[in-house]
């Protein structure tokens, strides 16, 4: 005999009724649309709009589907993860797709990396970022996960109203990731507040309707009423906020994550040091001491900056268009481990002038100790690039900076150029080369096959045909600064190559690239390239401005990076041929020679803004700061407390108005209404369509039954009640409230005081008002 299986309990509905589901979707979409608007200042790109327009509905749809199909929570998480994998690359990393739809393998890798690290990158990059690389991923993940979590909680959680916490928490986080300008937050904050309040109001209404299980009294007046109530609170809060904004001085910036996150060093933020090379030869500064290096050995090359990318205008450190490891500088928290530790040497360097962010070094850096009171601070800001063996001070190295440098140098000795073969050192691709370079190279290297021999021929020709001239003195032959394509074409088009280290190094580096050698330009100082200029140095440890030079390093297979000096010796330029040089009318290079009276550019020096930031008044700055902080906190507290104060004041006014009703019958009825409102505020659910007796029974309080009977008599009996009856009713109302206060905890009393439940009028009142209006 088989056992009879117990009947299966009916399963709860997977989804709420259509009206509730519709409201959940509408308000979720609206809330996350507002948050997407908050993201907008970060991106400001069509790709973001498309991504947001797709991903928010998808997130909502996933949550609804998971709920409809009764997936467990982990099932929804898997679905969201799958959505990220499928949609992430096309929407958030659009450059890594095939036909704009199919993700490339690299795209998936980039997506995964961006999920983990995109947040930090987003706060360490200038805004807006558009669809640059994979920076759309943080917004993509936020909107998708947030929208799905919001809808999922709204559909699944026991306390469904908690769903509003997701957008409420996400919104300030999104603002924190945004720009520090005061823009958008007021409108978006009010918008989100309005959406969430309306959602809560509608939610409450649905819950009450559900509790009635099909009550017909679900008039639309309730929605209007709740909308008005919510809008009133929003208007009060918004008005208070607007008033405070009008009264208080507006802050210049707001504090966001990027305000406190130290931005990484981007060498492209600084001008090309090679482009400013000619400024060192202005007569007014040429003989000034630029740097003092004590303890160096002969042949030590002081490296200021290493430039390995060329965009047709200037050589730069790193590149913003091609991947370049030379542009990434990492902090040097401790001494670096090097292969030839036993050959470590130390020099003491003093910067007689600022080199901007560039920190002169020698060889391969091992350790650095900065002297001075702020030495530790400067030391913390030192960053190093392993690829180019160059260093920077984030924020700029000040004039007078003194530091001890531990380093090792390559002691393998010089290499014979003719036997060198190209190495495989990674360098950024060259975007363009001068048109004449090809012919010039072909002419120079004719008959030579070995790369080393061809490179040697190039260097020899530069030495043979080159004439050094900075073009700044009257007795020097004309020599325009710059190393753009136009300038180099003009240089190579002449039989006598007149220029200085800037042009010769650029030509040599580009020629080496054409010959297959990785190459880069190093700006720095080296004894063999001192420009005496007829004035011997008074301090052999010092380098003058005019001693600044540039050389080329070529990547070789056996000898690694090999430095090559390319500046020809100073000599007279042969007289020009009959055809005089035609004035050049083509566009000038981006970097022009500085004026004689203008000191060398120092873009990395901190802007002199202190004067502008001085407080205008005579108040103590500290006191002013304290006042601003306290005032801001008070304003914030007032803003947050405004809705609560409005609620308490409105309820007190209502109670007073009821107690002072014009006739005893009205006062009795008002007393009953006050008693029910008190009960509602205390968390008691009263049937909105019940009779007074039913509501009193639902309250579970005996005095309410008496009040209900008295109120019924006042309303339905033919005789008028007396004033004493009204007084007794109000005494009972006050007694009921006092009894609640005596038996409730402090938090319960507080919740009852600020509860808005009683302010949402009962549907029957609204219906009656509509009926009276229709009758009138």
């Amino acid at each position: 005999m088989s056992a009879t299986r117990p009947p299966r309990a009916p399963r709860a509905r997977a989804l709420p009724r259509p009206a509730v589901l519709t409201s959940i979707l509408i308000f979720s979409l609206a809330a996350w649309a507002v948050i997407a608007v908050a993201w907008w200042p970060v991106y400001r790109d069509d790709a973001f709009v498309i991504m947001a327009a797709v991903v928010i509905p998808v997130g909502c749809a996933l949550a609804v589907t998971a709920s409809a199909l009764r997936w467990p929570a982990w099932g929804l998480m898997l679905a969201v993860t799958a959505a990220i994998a499928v949609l992430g690359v096309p929407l958030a990393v659009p450059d890594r797709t095939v036909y704009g739809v199919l993700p490339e393998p690299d795209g998936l890798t980039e997506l995964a990396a961006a999920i983990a690290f995109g947040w930090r990158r987003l706060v360490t990059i200038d805004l807006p970022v558009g669809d640059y690389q994979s920076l759309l991923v943080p917004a993509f993940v936020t909107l998708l996960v947030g929208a799905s979590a919001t809808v999922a909680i709204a559909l699944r959680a026991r306390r469904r109203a908690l769903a509003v916490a997701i957008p409420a928490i996400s919104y300030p986080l999104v603002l924190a990731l945004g720009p520090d300008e005061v823009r958008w937050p007021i409108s978006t904050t009010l918008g989100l507040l309005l959406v969430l309040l309306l959602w809560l109001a509608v939610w409450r209404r649905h819950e009450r309707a559900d509790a009635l299980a099909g009550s017909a009294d679900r008039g639309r007046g309730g929605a209007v009423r709740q909308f008005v109530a919510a809008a009133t609170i929003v208007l009060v809060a918004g008005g208070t906020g607007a008033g405070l904004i009008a009264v208080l001085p507006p802050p210049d910036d707001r504090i966001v994550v990027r305000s406190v996150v130290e931005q990484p060093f981007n060498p492209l933020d600084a001008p090309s040091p090679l482009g400013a090379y000619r400024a060192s030869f202005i007569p007014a500064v040429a003989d000034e001491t630029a740097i003092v290096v004590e303890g160096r050995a002969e042949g030590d090359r002081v490296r200021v900056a290493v430039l390995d990318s060329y965009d047709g205008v200037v050589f730069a450190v790193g590149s913003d268009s091609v991947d370049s490891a030379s542009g990434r500088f990492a902090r040097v928290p401790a001494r670096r481990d090097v292969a030839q530790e036993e050959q470590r040497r130390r020099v003491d360097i003093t910067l007689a002038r600022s080199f901007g962010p560039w920190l002169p070094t020698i060889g391969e850096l091992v350790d650095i100790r900065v002297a001075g009171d702020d030495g530790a601070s400067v030391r913390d800001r030192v960053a190093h690039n392993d690829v180019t063996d160059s260093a920077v001070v984030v924020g700029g190295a000040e004039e007078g900076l003194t530091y001890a440098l531990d380093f090792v140098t390559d002691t393998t000795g010089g290499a014979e150029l003719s036997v060198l073969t190209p190495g495989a050192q990674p360098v950024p691709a060259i975007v363009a080369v001068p048109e004449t370079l090809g012919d010039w190279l072909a002419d120079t290297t004719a008959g030579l096959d070995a790369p080393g021999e061809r490179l040697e021929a190039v260097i020899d020709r530069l030495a043979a045909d080159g004439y050094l001239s900075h073009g700044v003195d009257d007795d020097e032959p004309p020599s325009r600064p710059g190393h753009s394509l136009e300038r180099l074409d003009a240089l190579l088009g002449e039989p006598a190559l007149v220029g200085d280290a800037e042009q010769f190094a650029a030509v040599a580096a580009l020629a080496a690239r054409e010959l297959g050698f990785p190459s880069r330009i190093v700006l720095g100082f080296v004894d063999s390239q001192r420009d005496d200029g007829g004035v011997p140095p008074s301090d052999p440890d010092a380098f003058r401005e005019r001693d600044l030079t540039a050389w080329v390093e070529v990547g070789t297979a056996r000898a690694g990076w090999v430095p090559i000096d390319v500046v020809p010796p100073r000599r007279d330029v042969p007289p020009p041929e009959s055809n005089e040089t035609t004035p050049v009318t083509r566009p000038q290079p981006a970097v022009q020679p500085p004026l004689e009276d203008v000191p060398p550019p120092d873009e990395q020096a901190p802007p002199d803004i202190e004067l502008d930031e001085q407080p205008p008044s005579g108040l103590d700055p500290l006191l002013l700061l304290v006042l601003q902080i306290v005032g801001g906190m008070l304003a914030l507290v007032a803003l947050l407390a405004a809705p609560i104060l409005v609620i308490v004041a409105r309820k007190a006014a209502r109670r007073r108005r009821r107690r002072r009703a014009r006739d005893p019958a009205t006062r009795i009825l008002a007393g009953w209404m006050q008693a029910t409102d008190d009960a509602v505020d205390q968390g008691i659910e009263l049937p909105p369509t019940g009779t007074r007796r039913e509501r009193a029974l639902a309250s579970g309080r005996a005095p309410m039954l008496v009040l209900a009977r008295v109120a019924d008599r006042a309303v339905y009996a033919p005789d008028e009640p007396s004033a004493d009856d009204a007084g007794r009713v109000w005494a009972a109302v006050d007694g009921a409230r006092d009894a609640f206060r005596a038996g409730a905890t402090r938090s319960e009393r507080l919740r009852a005081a600020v509860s808005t439940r009683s302010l949402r009028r009962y549907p029957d009142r609204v219906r009656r008002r509509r009926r009276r209006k229709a009758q009138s």
Partner: protein
Amino acid sequence: MTMTPEQARWFADIADRIVANVETVLLGKAYVVRLGLTAMLSEGHLLLEDVPGTGKTSLARALAESVRGTTQRVQFTPDLLPGDITGITVYDQRSGEFTFHPGPVFATIVLADEINRASPKTQSALLEVMEEGYVTVDGIRHPVEAPFLVIATQNPIEQAGTYRLPEAQLDRFLIRTAIGYPDHGSTVRILSGAASPRAAVLDAVVELETVRDMIDAARSVHVDPVISDYVARLVEATREHADVRLGASVRGALALVRCAKTFAALDGRHYVVPDDVKALAEPVLAHRLVLDPEAEFDGVTPSAVIAQVVLETAPPSDRVAV
């Protein structure tokens, strides 16, 4: 002239004594007793749809004894003739005249047991007396004495060989309800001998004259216009309900107001409140509804329809916005 609060208290006091007296026989059925009293004081009649052995006869007899009235029990059978109910005219040879011999319908409370087993003709004869308050034999009217209450019963289980009361005749009953089985506690008390063994031994607590005064007083209970509006909305809602083919009639609405007035007086009030209407909506209106056959097939009952209508129709509430 409307009832005064003092009259209401007097009314409620007497009603409480009657109910308490009947309850000594019918344990735990105060609500049904009050409904029966409501029907009697509202000059209406009571239809009990109940299984045998629930105390229908005891209710009739106890109620009659409590008001010092008479009671008659008629077991309706298919061969029962109208004359067996109303009475007949017999020729008297000594006087050479026809004399009227009253039937069992001439009593304070008539228990028409299993009314649906009689032929429609016999049913109609009884229903005519219930509606008109008199019997017409050979062209002569013979009025029944007030108070006059017919408690008819129907067995909802055995329907074979019965003549179901048509809707128009069901409408003549003011209230339809069921006594039902007593709860466990009452059953134990009955078995323990707490209930009086026979209703006939009850002492009267009021005279018939007092009952007549109560009937007059019940008519004067105040009904606020909003209560009438509420009743009208309830009745209209029964007509608009999707599962109802024929809703409550105006007679039903009048019956509801009449019963509500008596029910309020039973509670010591000289005015009707919405709770009176709610409490009586089902017993007064449910048997007047004709459901849609499909809904009936789906298991919808008139009581469920009335419950839904009452739930969905908001009672009048606060008159002023304060």
